[in-house]
């Protein structure tokens, strides 16, 4: 019975995150139109009227809001589509980091086509680094030219948006703050993080599949009932193939079918793993970087 409830709990947590996100966003101004949605550049509030010391970082967000039935893509879009791309135009003294991608969703386009992306609303977070002390300037401007593809099950539409954000900067010392707090109120769990250090992940190359083995060590009582792996790289796993979850000693194994496009063995399996369990409110996503070994039979033949 509890096992039956796990799925909905997982999705409820995701939905709650999205709902909170929307609440956080509703206080902000309207975004720039994109096909079937809006896009807005937002920044952490704490930096307003603060000085920024050299070496200090703050986060900005690309806040997408999409009409029902439309989606954008993760860094690995899966079988089709393409992720949004951003060209930054920044004030002197600022450098943009790489996009921090929230945990994606599996988007089943058809029985044979599965994509990875985001529906409804999402914030792609980009860290900004102050190379110089930004205090003398009254305002700092951040510009972003975004190119993206917005798709539904029925069609795809390319979009472009030119975004501009003006941040007032004054020469007061910066106050304590928690990163991302006002960008992503209540949505921290939709970002993948490093797994607990006691958890060990490894992968085996087993002819037609890659088997990801999770050893959760002493994490007693963790009954993982759902697991889904999102590969960071394209052309590794058959995205539409079911991922087979099997409980194992102290953890589980997840079998991922290889794609025909994978022509060379891979040394590491990198991606995002979402798991949910039947007890506790566990519904988490983790960044995985597992070494890949050849399967045991193969090793025996080639010691």
């Amino acid at each position, binding site marked *: 019975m509890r096992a039956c409830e796990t799925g909905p709990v997982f999705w409820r947590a995701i939905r709650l995150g999205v709902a909170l996100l929307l609440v956080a966003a509703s206080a902000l101004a309207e975004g720039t139109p994109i096909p079937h949605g809006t896009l807005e550049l937002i920044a952490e509030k704490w930096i307003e009227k603060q000085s920024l010391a050299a070496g200090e970082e703050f986060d900005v967000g690309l806040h997408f809001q999409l009409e029902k039935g439309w989606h954008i893509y993760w860094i690995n879009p899966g079988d*089709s589509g393409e992720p949004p791309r951003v060209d930054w135009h920044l004030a002197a003294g600022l450098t943009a980091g790489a996009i921090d991608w929230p945990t994606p969703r599996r988007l089943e*386009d*058809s029985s044979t086509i599965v*994509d990875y992306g985001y529906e409804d609303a999402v914030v792609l977070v980009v860290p900004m680094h102050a190379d110089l002390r930004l205090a003398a300037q009254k305002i700092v401007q951040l510009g972003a030219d975004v190119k993206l593809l917005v798709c539904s099950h*029925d069609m*795809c539409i390319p979009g472009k948006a030119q975004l501009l954000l003006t941040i007032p900067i004054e020469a007061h010392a910066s106050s304590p703050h928690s990163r991302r707090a006002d960008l992503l109120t209540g949505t921290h769990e939709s970002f993948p993080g490093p797994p607990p250090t006691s958890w060990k992940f490894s992968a085996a190359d087993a002819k037609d599949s890659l088997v990801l083995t999770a050893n959760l060590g002493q994490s007693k009582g963790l009954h993982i009932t759902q697991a889904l792996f999102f590969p960071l790289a394209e052309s590794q796993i058959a995205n539409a193939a079911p991922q087979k979850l099997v409980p194992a000693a102290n953890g589980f194994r997840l079998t991922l079918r290889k794609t025909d496009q994978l022509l060379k063995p891979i040394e590491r399996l990198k991606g995002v793993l979402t798991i949910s369990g039947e007890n506790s409110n566990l519904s988490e996503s983790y960044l995985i970087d597992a070494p890949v070994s050849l399967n045991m039979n193969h090793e025996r033949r080639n010691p």
Partner: protein
Amino acid sequence: MEGDMKDMKRSTLYPLVVALVLCAAPSLLLAAKVGAPAPDFTGTASNGKTVHLSDYRGKYVVLEWHNNGCPFVGKQYNSGNMQQLQKRWTGQGVAWFTILSSAPGKQGNVSASEENAYMAKMQAAPTAALLDPRGDIGHLYDAKTSPHMFVINPQGVVIYDGAIDDKPTTELSDVAGARNYVSLALEQSLAGKPVATPVTRPYGCSVKY
């Protein structure tokens, strides 16, 4: 006695084997795969003709999955690149089929006359455009995107399966510097060499089944 056993085994196993083969057929036996025979199909062209792939044994064949509303397809046609490829290769005796697998009501689903008008306007020059609104040919080849390209050699074997080129974007400006995998496969195979890049990840819009 032994013969009876064999007969009995055959008679009991036969329906099972047939059932297994039929069930597994679409995914295991007929699926297009590089190095394997290209699955045969019969298609209805926008010019009204019926096309059997098997009639083109002895020629190279290119299959191009198409959706005229998809921006990745637009990149190839608005730059004139796809038409140039069609003219270049059909001019050298290659058969080129543009295949439209969009379901009714979805982007890229068009009538025969609409497709003919599109090809005239774009000066497209495939051997024929095949209307596949039920997705039969699309699923047979597991076509995932528009465009998704296949090259079949004169022996009827798939020698290329994947993207049109190595620039997975919708930018027209990316066409010029791209490595075109279809032309490379045809050039290498015509020169008697193995295809250096026989499988790539197709990119584009999902096929709108």
